[in-house]
Each structure stands twice: as structure tokens, then as C-alpha cells.
């Protein structure tokens, strides 16, 4: 699975005729292959824009490469990327099984393979007992896992997370983190995980990035980044007190 290299990434949003906003300002980063790369930062620091660029959902200047091969000209569907966001976006009229199987059906997978793959991911994410239920009969944590299962069932090489747990209550989050870690490990995809919750980021991350004004302010092992005296990190630490 790929190491993702981002070079000199710049994104400018046009607000109106006279005003523009620089969302990313020459960002450089290297995301570790088959690991969880967490990105934190104050709101407006460019976290979500970075994810959109990697997914190909937004126009950018600069270069994004998976294992050295540029993906800049590839459409989102050809990048092998899956996205899980804070709205679970499940189909309410479909069962859990059909929700998870949906991307495989669209891709034209044979029936036997669909059943095999859905059962495998349901087993990892502890969803086997609710495969026949509809999303409205599930708890928030379970719905979130269905969204994760639907993203991973295609076996994407890169999985992007945009604050996937911010709608879950505090007691649920540990379990969900455990499932997330287990499934990323099993499928070996490269994960970029955006959050504004610092404890969650330090708990999950193999490598932690702090964004400030559209650039990486500091990155490295979570323990080192959390205790670093970089002003952007210090400001974030102030927020959690």
C-alpha cells in the first residue's frame, strides 16, 4: 500500500470577486504506508481541504504521489481512495448487509465473492449479528462501523477519515478506535485521519501532523509532537485545558 507524498500543495478558494482565501499554503508531508496518520489543527487550518485534495475532490496546485507515482491527473474514482466522514451517509432503506455490499455490487463483483467479503469485514467490525437490520435500528457506534465497513470492503489502498467519531458519545469511542485500528491493520491501507480531538489523535496515530495556516507546523511520533514546544501545538494544548 502506498506511501503518500504531498509536495508544495496550494489551494485557493475564491470567496467573491475581490476576496480569496488561501486554504493550503505550500504544504509538504509524507504519510506512512499501512499506518494511521492523524492530522490535527485549529479550525480553518486546512485539515479537511488536505483530505479533499488527496481524494481528488478539489482543485489544487502542487503534487500528490502514491509511492512516487503522481495521481494529480487521476479522477477520484481511479485513485483507490475511500472516505469516511462524520455523517455516516448510509442508505436508510437497505439492510446493513446491502449497505456494505453496495460498492461491490456497483463494481459488478460475483455474488459469492460479495458474500465472502461482506462477512469477512462484518466479522472484524463485530457487525455479524446485525447484518439483517436497517441502519435506524443501530446505535451511533454501529452505524459508524457500517460506514467504515462499506469503505473498506472495496479494499482501497488509501482510506481517508474526516472526524468520523465526532458524533459518537465518549463511552463508545474506545471500542470504535479498537475496531478502526484492527481493520486498518488487517487490510493494510494507508490511513489519513483528520480530527480536532487531540486525545483521540494521540491514541490512534502512528504519525501525528499538526497543521497551522495551511502548512505542517510539526510532525512525528505522537508523544514527541504532543510534548513539543511548537507554538501551533502549544496553542492546541491550551484548548484542551
Amino acid at each position, binding site marked *: 500500500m502506498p506511501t503518500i507524498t504531498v509536495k508544495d500543495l496550494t489551494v485557493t478558494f475564491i470567496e467573491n470577486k475581490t476576496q480569496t482565501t488561501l486554504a493550503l499554503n505550500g504544504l509538504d508531508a509524507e504519510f506512512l504506508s499501512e499506518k494511521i496518520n492523524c492530522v490535527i489543527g485549529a479550525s480553518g487550518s486546512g485539515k479537511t481541504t488536505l483530505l479533499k485534495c488527496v481524494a481528488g475532490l478539489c482543485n489544487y496546485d502542487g503534487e500528490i504521489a502514491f509511492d512516487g507515482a503522481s495521481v494529480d491527473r487521476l479522477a477520484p474514482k481511479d485513485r483507490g481512495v475511500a472516505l469516511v466522514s462524520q455523517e455516516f451517509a448510509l442508505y436508510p432503506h437497505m439492510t446493513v448487509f446491502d449497505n456494505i455490499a453496495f460498492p461491490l455490487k456497483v463494481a459488478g463483483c460475483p455474488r459469492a465473492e460479495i458474500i465472502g467479503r461482506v462477512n469477512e469485514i462484518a466479522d472484524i467490525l463485530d457487525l455479524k449479528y446485525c447484518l439483517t437490520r436497517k441502519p435506524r435500528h443501530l446505535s451511533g457506534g454501529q452505524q459508524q462501523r457500517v460506514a467504515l465497513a462499506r469503505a473498506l470492503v472495496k479494499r482501497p489502498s488509501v482510506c481517508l477519515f474526516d472526524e468520523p467519531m*465526532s458524533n459518537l*458519545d*465518549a*463511552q463508545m469511542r474506545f471500542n470504535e*478506535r479498537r475496531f478502526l485500528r484492527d481493520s486498518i491493520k488487517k487490510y493494510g491501507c494507508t490511513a489519513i485521519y483528520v480530527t480536532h480531538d487531540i486525545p483521540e489523535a494521540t*491514541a490512534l496515530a502512528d504519525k501525528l501532523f499538526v497543521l497551522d495556516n495551511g502548512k505542517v507546523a510539526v510532525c512525528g511520533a505522537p508523544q514527541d509532537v504532543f510534548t513539543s514546544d511548537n507554538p501551533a501545538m502549544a496553542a492546541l494544548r491550551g484548548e*484542551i485545558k
Partner: protein
Amino acid sequence: MANVSLKGVYKYYDKNPKPAVSDFNLEIQDGEFIVFVGPSGCGKSTTLRMVAGLEEISEGEIAIEGKVVNDIEPKDRDIAMVFQNYALYPHMTVYDNIAFSLKMKGLETPVLDEQGNPIFDKKGRPVVKKRRYTKQEIDEKVQEAARTLEITEYLKRKPKALSGGQRQRVAIGRAIVRKPKVFLMDEPLSNLDAKLRNQMRAEIIELRKKVQTTFIYVTHDQVEAMTLGDRIVIMKEGVIQQIGTPTEVFNSPANLFVACFIGAPQMNLFKAKLVKTEKGYAAMLDGVKLELSAAVNEKLKAQNAEEREIILGVRPEHINLEKSPSDKTLTAKVDISEMMGSELHVHAEFEHAIKIKDDNKKDDESEKDQKKMIVRTPLLGLPETIAESIRTGGEIYFTFSPEVMHLFDFETGNSLT
């Protein structure tokens, strides 16, 4: 401002013999902030809607300012309600949305005789003169509400041009402009994202300081309940489990449900045995005798408690890690640990740890969670020997002091202390 009293309130829905709310008794003081909290389907919103008059009361009595309101129309109860989905008029500007209730309601003033006493009609009701608010009066009140909520600059916009948090502020503005006696809020922050939710929570605390009104607030979020409420009413399946201040429900939960509902990560539960000793009582856990505090001993003596199986509850932050084993320490095996910024959450396996049943899971699924416990410990100053065994998945040795132990009946789950 007004006090609100609920006496023996029941709510039955057609065809369902089980009440959605049963025997609800609560006295809310003038100017108090009360939070109803519980999992979905516990009857908290139903109770609030009965106070508002949006649901009929099946049995019992609800009184606002001493006056029974069971048969009074919602509009005549002098209450205001804020909903989760804001319910703003999309075609009106923020200003018109806030002014709407003033335009509709008008102003009632009692008619006075020459001596300045109110005049009553034949049925003994005070005679009132009704008139519309003048444009200037409406403007003053709207501007004042907008200043309180800091939305003056958005008054000319329509709701679709506002963010979720701003919309919710407009909804609150529409409620406070009428200066109601009681303010009812039904999960007002649930539609906002986590960051806005934190910000709006702080704003509600501020608002509460500015408008001295009685608040009844419904939420399923324990953090909101703990930070906002003067008192919290914890409900489950239509029944009140405990009423108390945030500190009371955290420190002295009435039963296992409250103990596990409040606090994150959840309280650890252990299967233990209550035994009699020379001094009074002690708890036996994994062969270690745990002394109980003097206060707990007194209470158990007063109940003349028998030796039996009990459930012992200890919050993750109250567990002390020890460097080496002794006859007073318990031993668990580290499963994984998570670095949560400045503290560490250690998840460990312990033979006598149990979990109460999760209704959402089948029995065999709940089984997997058994024998698991969590320890919360600060990272700073953690001895190297302990840090090492946590890193390598080794054994940890732990104790807890008598003051932090909660004792529950094994069968009923009620607190023994």
C-alpha cells in the same frame, strides 16, 4: 420565572400497556436549570412535551407557578420551547423570525378601577385589555435579544444563509424575546457538529446568567448534563433513576445504571463478596480483603447487611497503579494502552471484572466485553517499571482507597451505600 411541579405524572400511548413515563415526581425551583438525561426512548422528551402541553397527561398533575396546567393550552402556559431542528421560518429574515411571536401574541394588561385595583368579571377572572405591540416596542425587544445572543449583524439574513450554530441562536432568540416563565429545550445542540456544540454549550451557560428563567433541558449527552445542570434527572425506560446535583450523581450513584451512564470511560465493575470482619465489613475481591470506609461501614451496619455476593464499582481514574505486587494489590494483564494526550488509558484483562448487559447486543456478543477493565493514569510521573509493563503488555498491580469504592446489590443493582 416560575417554579414547576410534576406530581405522579404518567404517560400511556394507545395500545401500549407499558407507560412511556411512569410516576414522575419533581419539584423545580424558581430559576433552576434542570436537565433530563437518559438513553433514547427513556421518556425524557415525552415528559418535556407534557410540560409544554404538546402531549396529553395520562395521569397526574403538572403545575407552573402553583397553577395546575393540565388542561391549559400550550400558548397560554407562558413557556417557550427550542427544538433540535430549530423550526425557523425559511422565508422570513432573522429579524422577522424573532419578532414573529411578539406580533402574534400582543400585550395583555389588567384593567384597573379608580383606586388602582384590578377589575374582575362575573366568573372572577381579571378583566384584561389586549393590544398589539407597537413597532418600536417590537424593535427594542428584538434588538435586545439579538444583543444578548450576539446575532445583531445577521438580523437581515434569511436562515439559509446562517450556520447551524447561528440558526440555533436565532431559535433561542425567538424564545427569549417573549420573556417566558419557563424555558424548555429539547436536545438543542444535537444537530451541531462537535466543535460548535462545545461553543454553544458555553453560550447557554452565559445566556442562563443573563436571563434568570427556569430552564428544563433535555439531552442524551452526559457531558451537557453535567456541565449545564443545577440538578440532573437521570431516566431509564420512563422511570426516574436518580435526581441530584452533578456532583451527587457522579460521586454517589443510586444504582448500576446511573453509575455506568455517568462518567467516561465507564466505571469498572467487579464481582466481589461482602464479608463480616472484626471491625465491621470488608469486600473480598480475588482473595484480597478490601477495607471499607467508616461511613460505608455505618450504613451497612444500620442495614444489618448479610455476607453475600456484591458488585464493586471503581471509576478508572480512582485506580492506583503500584510498582510491585503485595498481599494488598490486585493483578491484571494489560491488553492495550492508549496515549490520550497528557494521560494514559490502560485496558486490561481481570478475571473478576464484569459488564452490565447492553440491550443492543445479543448475549453472546456482550460476553466478549466481560473481564475487561480500564485504568486512567497521568503520563507525567508514571514510574518506569509500570510504564514498561504497560508498553510490553505485561501485568499491572493495582489498589484503590476505601473512599472511591461503590457497592451495589448483585441482584437489584441498587447502591448499598
